[in-house]
């Protein structure tokens, strides 16, 4: 289980418990969290689950794969060094407490 805080572009925060092995995208979508879409269901084809990871947590994450890297070039809002696809961030004890910011738009 990881406690994940999602912060919207307008500042609204929501903290969810995401079960181990579940992606931060699925965690958000299953709670109808505004700010993450996940149209393709997590196969890195739509880039509508883009998040900005709060930089202090980046060290806990494996680097993006080549496929994720390619898709991060297609996000609706500007890619930043802390941009990730939340479908590729899988909850575990290591991510407990992580904070991610959702962009203004996913499309």
């Amino acid at each position, binding site marked *: 289980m990881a406690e994940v805080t999602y912060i919207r572009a307008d500042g609204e925060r929501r903290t969810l418990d995401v079960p181990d092995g579940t992606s931060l995208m699925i965690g958000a979508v299953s709670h109808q969290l505004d700010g993450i879409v996940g*149209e393709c269901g997590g196969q890195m084809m739509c880039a509508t689950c883009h998040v900005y990871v709060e930089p202090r947590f980046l060290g806990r994450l494996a680097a993006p794969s080549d496929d994720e890297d390619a898709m991060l070039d297609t996000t609706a809002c500007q890619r930043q060094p802390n941009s990730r696809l939340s479908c590729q961030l899988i909850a575990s004890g290591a991510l407990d407490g992580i904070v991610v910011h959702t962009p203004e738009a996913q499309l």
Partner: protein
Amino acid sequence: MSTVTDQDLLSPELTEDPFAYFARLRAEDHVHWAEANKAWLLTRYDDVVAAYADPRLSSDRVRPLLGVLPPERRAEYGPMLETIGHWMVVTDPPAHTRLRKLANHAFRQQRVNAMGAWIGELVDDLLDDFTASGSDDFLNRIAYPLPAAVIARMMGAPLQDRDKFQHWSDELALVAFSAGGEDRASRYTRALAGVRELQEYLAQLIDRRRREPGEDMISLLLAGADESGDHLDDAELMALCSLILFAGHETTTNLLCNALVALDRHPAELARLRDDPSLVNRAVEEVLRYEGPIKIIIRWVVEDHDRDGRTVKAGDRVFLVQQSANRDAGTFGDPDRFDIGRPTQPLHVGFGRGIHACLGAQLARIEARVALPKILGRLGGVRVLGDVTWRPNIASRAVTGLRVGHG
């Protein structure tokens, strides 16, 4: 017992305007047995979204059909169904997972985002020809050739072959989108002839790419790119290429036409987009919601279950009515209003959701985002001429033709 009188989805009335009927179903019989079409209709947004991920609803809907085909029809329908039965849109995991992963990889490498400038030039060329010709045939001179040229390039096919793609794609659409009307009787034989010609063409293309690999999808699929070393065999490659060619073509044509129709019927929204092209991303999503190219996605029930008191049985067909879900007032405020500034969340289900979500969604979006502002900008006073009529298809929302005037 349903209080709503069942209507045939292929009737002229519902082909023209199904929205009031779907609104009644959502309110009074949201899981509706459509006797006329022999299928359950799921009409609410939440139900449709959940259905995409429901393992009791299978996408493997062609092979079961082969099994129950009466012997006298096997000769006519069999070969066509065998062919499209290999398409990944009609497979379930794990077969689907493998095909989709390989397709995703090759598609991603096309870097569709970088294609925007080239697509823009293509649109400009088509608009140059259109205005110079004095033609009013928007469908055949702009909406058809644009996606055909884009898909030809992605497949590494010569641009001049796009007219052939168009013909095969039209023939395939008769079966893939369940055509009604006068095309219904001959649709299998016509589609099969189209598929055979397409396969011969693809075989040559694949052979050429084997000898001279490029950056196109066929070359990447031949290289067998995934990390496990998995790759497609020849039959799978052929099936995937024919699917991509078909799927990337017809639907985008309809998206462009439907966009123009919706804008024409809402002049204030048209003016708004022309004045502020930065609204185009939202406008494209609104067209996908309001008048998306795919009306219905079909699933096949593989396990008896209950849906809000209705017993759905294995072997039944279920229609995920995207056209209805996208007008659900429980999800979208004022759903019958066409508003190009509407927020994109909650997102429409125009491209489906989950493992079968449209492979080319990003590409279709880019084509429409590039094309629409140019069309409105260059065709001053653009307007639809004459009445718009829709094709009697179960699956696709497609105009029969689209003539436009300008100036």
